């Protein structure tokens, strides 16, 4: 697989499609600005074709779809989004430090895809990295220190404490909630302003009605005014609450992927600290 020189964050469609196919055991060759992929039988059956040709303009990062076939492009992208949900990563740490420390240190990385209840806020992918266990001493090794755990390591590694994982999850949810609140706030404020304006207009209208009442009928105007004002406020309140509730309930967070990060002592693969 030919990686984009400038790092994965700059990768675009052709590169990504090729990576998806390659991760599904397709044989991918890059020839200049084109990628040729020979699909294994299972994948060929899934995608309905035995070969895929992906083209990019000579500018390098300017993309075309797979064979200019938008539907196939979509199917490959969907394939990329259907697997690889859970990963186990380890970071070797110096044996001395490991010996000095006590238990294995775990972190959990959660990738949330958030669809907000407002069209004004774009959907986003939020990544949270949370320590598992009450207090994890020391700092987390840098991201590039983590690698995939080998099969042997996976067998030997101690799984995290379920209670601790549950606490990390709760903490993640709280952070997620705060994120959603923060993103929605400007839009809720806008809505509130609009409703305030509406209420003011209604109040003006109401006052003129009261004046008519006062002029036309000899009734206890204060009572009527108070009653109407209360009704007005309640209407406004109900409207605001309904709008906020609607937005709140329309916001959906989907956990699309997660990884368990663990430290292992350097030089002794497989034995957890």
């Amino acid at each position, binding site marked *: 697989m030919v990686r984009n020189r400038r790092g994965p964050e700059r990768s675009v469609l052709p590169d990504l499609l090729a990576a998806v196919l390659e991760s599904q055991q397709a044989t991918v060759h890059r020839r200049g600005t084109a990628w040729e992929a020979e699909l294994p039988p299972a994948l060929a059956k899934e995608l309905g074709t035995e070969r895929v040709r992906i083209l990019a303009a000579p500018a390098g990062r300017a993309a075309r779809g797979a064979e200019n076939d938008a539907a196939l492009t979509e199917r490959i992208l969907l394939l990329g989004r259907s697997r690889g*949900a859970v990963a186990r990563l380890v970071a070797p740490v110096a044996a001395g430090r490991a010996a000095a420390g006590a238990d294995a240190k775990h972190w959990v990385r959660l990738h949330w895809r958030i669809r907000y209840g407002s069209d004004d806020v774009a959907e986003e992918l939020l990544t949270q990295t949370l320590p598992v266990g009450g207090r994890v001493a020391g700092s987390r090794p840098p991201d590039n220190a983590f690698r*995939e755990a080998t099969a042997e390591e996976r067998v030997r590694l101690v799984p995290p404490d379920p209670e601790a994982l549950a606490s990390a*999850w709760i903490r993640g949810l709280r952070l997620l909630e705060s994120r959603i609140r923060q993103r929605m706030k400007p839009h809720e404020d806008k809505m509130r302003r609009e409703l305030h304006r509406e209420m003011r207009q209604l109040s003006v209208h109401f006052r003129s009605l009261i004046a008519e009442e006062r002029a036309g009928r000899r009734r206890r105007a204060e009572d009527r005014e108070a009653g109407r004002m209360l009704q007005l406020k309640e209407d406004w309140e109900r409207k605001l609450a309904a709008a*906020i509730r609607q937005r709140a309930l329309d916001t959906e967070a989907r956990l699309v992927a997660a990884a368990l990060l663990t430290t292992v002592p350097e030089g002794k693969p497989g034995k957890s600290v």
Partner: protein
Amino acid sequence: MGASVTRESRRGGVYRGFRVGDRVVHKTFGEGLIVEVRDRDGFEVLEIAFPDGIRRLTSLYPLEPVGSAPRGGIAPPAPMPVGPRVGGVELTPRGQFRIAAGAEEILQRLLVGPFDPLREHDVRLRAERYSLHRGFDRLLCVEHLHDVHKYEHQIQACMTALRRMRGRALLADEVGLGKTIEAGLVLKEYLLRGLVQRALVLVPASLVEQWDQELRRKFDLEFAILKHGTPWWEEPLLLASMDTAKLLRHRDKVAAAAFDLVIVDEAHRLKNHKTLAWKFLDRLAPRYLLLLTATPVQNDLHEIYNLVQLLRPGLLGTYRTFGREFMRRGDRRMPQNTGRLATLLGETMIRTTRASTSIRFPKRQVTNVHFDLTEPERALYDDVTKLVRRLVLGQRESRRGAIKLTLLTLQKEIGSSSFAAAPTLAKLLQRDGMAPFRADVEALWRNARGIETNAKFEGIVKILQGSRDKVVIFTQFRATLEFITRSLRARGVRVATFHGALSLREKEEAIGQFRDRARVLVSTEAGGEGRNLQFCHILVNYDLPWNPMRIEQRIGRLHRLGQEHDVHVFNFTARNTVEAYVLEIVHEKINLFRTVIGDLDMVLGPFAEAGSFEDAVFNIWSHARGDRDLEREFGKLGAALLVGRKRYDAVEDLDRQLLDGLGADGDGA
């Protein structure tokens, strides 16, 4: 509800965890709905709608939550379809959102596996990220730009062109608001999304180089330039001057290349539907078309009709009905039915005005510094001028061209410094047919080598002493650059140098060095191309290019969107030199230094072609028989430019009045 959760805030206050939508009871005001929760100085400040109005209270007031099922407030979040349970703890979210199904399975797998290969995991995350960018709701290209400050109006214009105008738009922003960036954004977005495979950019000849630089540096796009004798028609990304592209030998091939997107800069040149350029573009019929101009109307409203006709044929009716419906009888410039015209133009034209943005545009503060050359320098300058005149006049017309370029360069070099002129004098000595002048040239060469200072250099020293800010010094010649660098370093000034002989990496390093450490950047013309130096706001033109376009490019590196200070331009000229005359023309007549001119070609008129203004200056200088001649001829040249400048100003005013009056700005909405 949240009121049962109490925790200490960072500043020692108390949070009771109230949320918008919670219902509470206050002993005085009764039952109310929380409509706002803010953190102020460590305390929770609540805005509560009580029956008698909205009140602002802190959560320290005696407030009691109303039950667990609030009336009229926000219902607790819907339970998760499958309540995740890890280690006996039910994992129910507290917040105002719901969690989609599938979380439990992922959590269980974190505990017991199975785990997926890292490669699949990475690919999944990349695919998820990619799939967030759907439609044109969010621009993919934004994160692929380099060294570009993105302004909201540019993003909006790009979105409007992509979404509402479906890639066929007239970008008519006022000068200086970044039409090029907007067009580049649209181009990059289409390329990234695979909707455009072949793109053609048509620009005036004088802007080909500038566009090439901008597309390369800012958008990472390698455009091939249309050149005769190369298989340019095979190139997916082609940059060409309109004049070259429409040539008989090229136009069929350009049309056959079937470009998906065509961008035309300075599109007001397509104002006349009877011209070859208009017909050529009409024949190209690309899927997407962007026309860029700040002045879509110059003399006649039919001009904008002709532009719109290229983008959306039929939108404004027929030529005749447009005239009848939208033009006042007897005045081709004045519209009528402006409301309807604005609505129609809004469907294909995007115009942002400076007034409609909150961007601060820095001013240009210009100081012309006139020097007296030292005696040896004066003698050398006059002798070189005499030699140039003798050589030009002494050659027959047919042979003059061969030596003219060398002499023109020599005359420019001696205006810069004696160091710049010495190598060219040495080359002249080796040239055939120079035997009659050999002794004179040799003497001049020796004199040039004998001069060790330059009168203008003291000017730099004064500027550096008068300010602590960074300074960019432009010169046209390497020898002058080296002299300035040497002299400044000898005085202990930290200097970075930038010139065409540096590799790409060295150039980046030089800019980085100037940004981070050096006080002064000494740069040749190569520094005037495409590099942003807006972190600095003092510019010294150590010598003055004879081409106004080059001067504008130099200033444009500092004076651009994003510059936070007024830009100070110091023009160094020695008295009684060509540069002094050029300065007078470009400064006094066309006021180049103080204002930004959108289409300099319009001002330059017949001198717009590459090199022709320099030629005109050189011809006047080399054929002059005395100061009177010089005054008269440069006066004529200045008058011609003044006419161009007035014409340009009038057009700009007209468009401002007309288009802003139509209200066809911003989103066109």
